[in-house]
């Protein structure tokens, strides 16, 4: 994109859409990772009882 020019509305709207989508994709990946980490780090109830 030409950084020195004023971007048309269609361009900025697509940046808005793609930007929010991008943030949510990264966020989803982080949430999945945290959930997996918590699952792996928490000993199972069965293991605790034995």
């Amino acid at each position, binding site marked *: 994109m030409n950084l020195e*020019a*004023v971007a048309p*509305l269609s361009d900025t709207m697509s940046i*808005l859409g793609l*930007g929010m989508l991008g*943030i949510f994709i990264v966020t989803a990946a982080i*949430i999945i*990772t945290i959930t997996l980490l*918590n699952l792996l780090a928490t000993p199972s109830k069965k293991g605790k009882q034995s």
Partner: protein
Amino acid sequence: MWAIGGILIYLAIKKDMEPSLLLPMGFGAILVNIPMSGAITQIIDGAKEIGVLNVLFDGGIANELFPLLLFIGIGAMIDFEPLLTNPKLMLFGAAAQFGIFATLVGASLLGFQLKDAASIAIIGAADGPTSIFVANYLNSNFLGPIIIAAYSYMALVPIVQPPIIKLLTTKHERCIRMEYTGSSVSQSTKILFPIIVTVIAGVFAPRSVALVGFLMFGNLIRECGVLGSLSDTAQKVLANLITLLLGITVAANMQAESFLTLRTLMILGLGLVAFIFDTAGGVLFGKLMNLFTKKKVNPMIGAAGISAFPMASRVVHKMGLAEDKTNHLLMHAAGANVAGQIASVIAGGVLLSLIVK
């Protein structure tokens, strides 16, 4: 500019508005606007005399060194435990970045070049170092006003957010209670978290990796358990030293001829717009979540998804107590708030990835 410098010093001392930054900036604004000031580079009798503030600017801001070093200190200060116990709070951090992209649209409509529109938009990251990093990366013409707006609105979060939150929520919604399990997070999770977030952010948004990486490096120092003195140094000495230099160095860009323009006022206005849309994005996302989930969330938590830490979480906590003295939202708000810290840095990287090709 002397008056503006005086106002910044007054706000820092009397109103306690981000004093560690606004005071050096205020003094710097006076310093660089003294006629023939030796603090900045001048051409005198055809000879170029290098000013110390320009040396600091080239060595610390032009190459993004200061904001990145500051991120080590910030990372060492942040406890991600409230987020790790309830990872879905991360979604609020993402939603509350909406103001960045909404402001990009607004700034472009007002005639700002794309590089300046994006730099102004990043005020909505509610995160000073990210604003400096992105604005400088894009070589914006408005670095001074952008930084002043970013830090001023962060200090004004307790004034800016409550009316927006009240406007978008009902009393019933503000009274929603959220259960806090308080389950502990293992040390290994705390250690792996900063490493994995850095890798994920690096894979999806490579331009964010410097910002995320330094933030998470600071957090790794904090959580590893064997670098206590380094963690203390990063949190206190490093963060204070860089903040001190950052404030006065930014003033190198606050010379009257480039600062006292209508565009500066427009940037301050757009910064406010960014914070308003950030807050609205987070709160409305909370309301949207409530349409699909059994366990209702208090939508005010969404407002804490902006990065301004810890002001935004305190605002939400206080508003919750104002509606119901027994409704404590602090831990949930703190989780959303630290999520906002990560998301704002990622937003900066995503924005750069989208416009710099």
